[in-house]
């Protein structure tokens, strides 16, 4: 983990004069509550997970079955389908969120009047629980009486089943043009795309705030210099903002991708609010997290669910390493 630039250097390490080194043994007492909780509920469980993943049966009646859970998971079409869906979720939400978030943050950054008010509004969905907002969005996408179908009607387009639609969006669009796309080209289901719209709505404000913080850190003199050299707005954005904002963009991409792999609340609540089974319709909204939870909660297969969680954790771990690698490099560049 790289240190933020705001840190105060003189407080960094032990007192300067060697002779004065006197240990504060009481420090361990100060650390005790935090360490105790973290060890019991954060570190120990991570190791214990490996043991659970080798167990079959219910929680109170575990029995050792070795690597069977992993083998079963890796052979289950549902697992690979869930992984593919997770990738669709990343593709469908992360780039849109970053592009829109940066765009809006950039507009807000232009010393615009009412910036504070806009910021409050854009961030508002982020503080609302997924259950409450899913209820509203499920109604928006309700085939009878939902506003989404009314909008389609106004545009002269055919009504859709939205959260109940298991057909892929590309297939549906193709049908609109009278084309019949092959199955592998049909894309994520319309139900899943509806969930993605909901997720983008809720996450956008977060990205806007982070990008605004990043933009504020860019030295204003650079823009002045660019203007003197006759650069127009787009050129300033392209050659000053984007390069200097690269660390922020990378940071947001990685945490959004990791967040997508962990995405649960949005999908789960939309499934429930649309009276669909978990991951429905026809498993087209089943991501890895949803698959794991379903195995644990509905199927009572704790060992199997843990094996899936470990596979998921490995993916997240790899993504985190990429992030750390990048930031270590970025930190060194800044230091030079």
């Amino acid at each position, binding site marked *: *983990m*790289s240190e*933020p630039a*705001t840190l105060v250097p*003189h*407080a960094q390490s032990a*007192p300067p004069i060697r002779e004065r080194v006197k240990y*504060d043994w*009481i*420090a*361990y007492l*100060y*650390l005790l*509550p*935090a360490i*105790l*909780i973290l060890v019991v509920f*954060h570190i120990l*469980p*991570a190791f*214990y997970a490996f043991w*659970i993943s080798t167990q079959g049966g219910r*929680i109170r009646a575990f029995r050792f079955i070795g690597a069977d859970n992993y083998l079963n998971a890796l052979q289950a079409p549902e697992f690979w389908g869930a992984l593919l869906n997770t990738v669709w979720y990343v593709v469908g939400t992360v780039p849109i969120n970053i592009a829109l978030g940066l765009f*809006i943050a950039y*507009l807000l950054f232009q010393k*615009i009047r009412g910036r504070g008010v*806009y910021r409050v509004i*854009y*961030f*508002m969905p982020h*503080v609302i*629980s997924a*259950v409450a907002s899913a*209820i*509203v969005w499920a*109604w928006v996408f*309700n085939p009878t*009486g939902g*506003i989404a179908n009314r909008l389609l009607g106004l545009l002269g387009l055919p009504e859709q089943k939205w959260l109940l639609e298991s057909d892929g969006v590309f297939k549906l669009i193709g049908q609109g043009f009278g084309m019949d796309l092959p199955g592998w080209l049909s894309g994520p289901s319309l139900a899943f795309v509806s969930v993605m719209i909901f997720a983008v*709505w809720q996450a956008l404000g977060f990205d806007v*705030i982070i990008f*605004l*913080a990043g933009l504020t850190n860019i030295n204003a003199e650079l823009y002045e210099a660019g203007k003197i050299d006759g650069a127009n707005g787009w050129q300033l954005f392209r050659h000053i903002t984007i390069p200097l904002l690269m*660390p922020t963009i990378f*940071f947001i991409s990685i945490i959004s991708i990791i967040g997508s792999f*962990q995405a*649960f*609340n949005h999908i789960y*609540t939309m499934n*429930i*609010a649309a009276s669909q089974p978990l991951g429905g319709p026809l498993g087209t909204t089943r991501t890895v*997290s949803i698959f794991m939870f379903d195995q*644990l909660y509905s199927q009572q297969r*704790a060992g199997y*669910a*843990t094996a899936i*969680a470990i596979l*998921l*954790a490995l993916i997240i771990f790899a993504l*985190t390493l990429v992030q750390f690698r990048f930031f270590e490099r970025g930190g060194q560049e800044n230091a030079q």
Partner: protein
Amino acid sequence: MNRDKLKSQLTNLGIHAILISGALFMVFPFAWMILGSLQTFHETTLGTFLPEQPMWSNYYDAIVAMNGAKPCVFDPAAPLDILTREKGCMIVRYFFNTMVMGLGTVLGVLTTGTLAGYAFARMNFPGRETLFKLLLATMMIPGELTLIPNYVFMVWFPTPESWIATALNLPNAEPHNWIDTYYALIIPWIATVFSIFLFRQFFRGIPNELFDAALLDGATHSRFLISVVLPLSKPVLITSALLTFLGSWNALMWPMLVTNSPEMRPIQVGLRSLITEAGTQTQLLLAGATVTIIPIIILYLFLQRWFVEGISNVGIRG
């Protein structure tokens, strides 16, 4: 000159037009929710915009639906009865549970974070840097991995009072696990590496001179922490408290796993079960959703500066 001015004004207008349409997209679900919560069921199936007559009774009906179709009674003679399932009102109980969970978690996070953050920032002890780096490394453990083991712990752990009672061989002593207790809702969440990190960073920024002066006056670490450091640390305390409270208020997966009985459900789980109970009665669901988000919206509007600053800090931490 005049043309330039006109041009910049037009640009400004364009920017506002874009921002306002974006803002409308952000706000419309809230407006839609409130309008829908006042419609009849029939109106919600037609895509009505304004209800013909506002159905305020939807709110009452939603609260009754959350109460297992039983009307809510408040008896001034026994005010605490409102928290019970038989005589009371479950939505009050749900909110109460959420408050207990939220405030308990906040209190815990602030306490453990302050103490550990102070030790890492201001105290000198063997293994300080190594221990801190180890803690940072554990931030990579995703919640998915610890979810199931922690759930198993909740099934295994005896509650302190039942453990003591059994150990003392008290009559009727029966081991009770953490499922359906506030322990399960609060204790696993009262320390986070992130808040320790936040506190340490902040405490390191406090000038050494203050510390030296206090030491000359013979102050101990605990005195210094309480009378000098904490009063200076309002920003980090508020940020940490708000983000923790928000996370606790909106938590869903964990409370769902560790609560079986309705008496222990926080409001989000209560709202989630309303979806099952009220079924397709959209107007009741919308009324229920409105009730649950009003407190958090009010909190947000009053403290929005701290929310935004907190999130910005999270980003800079990278």
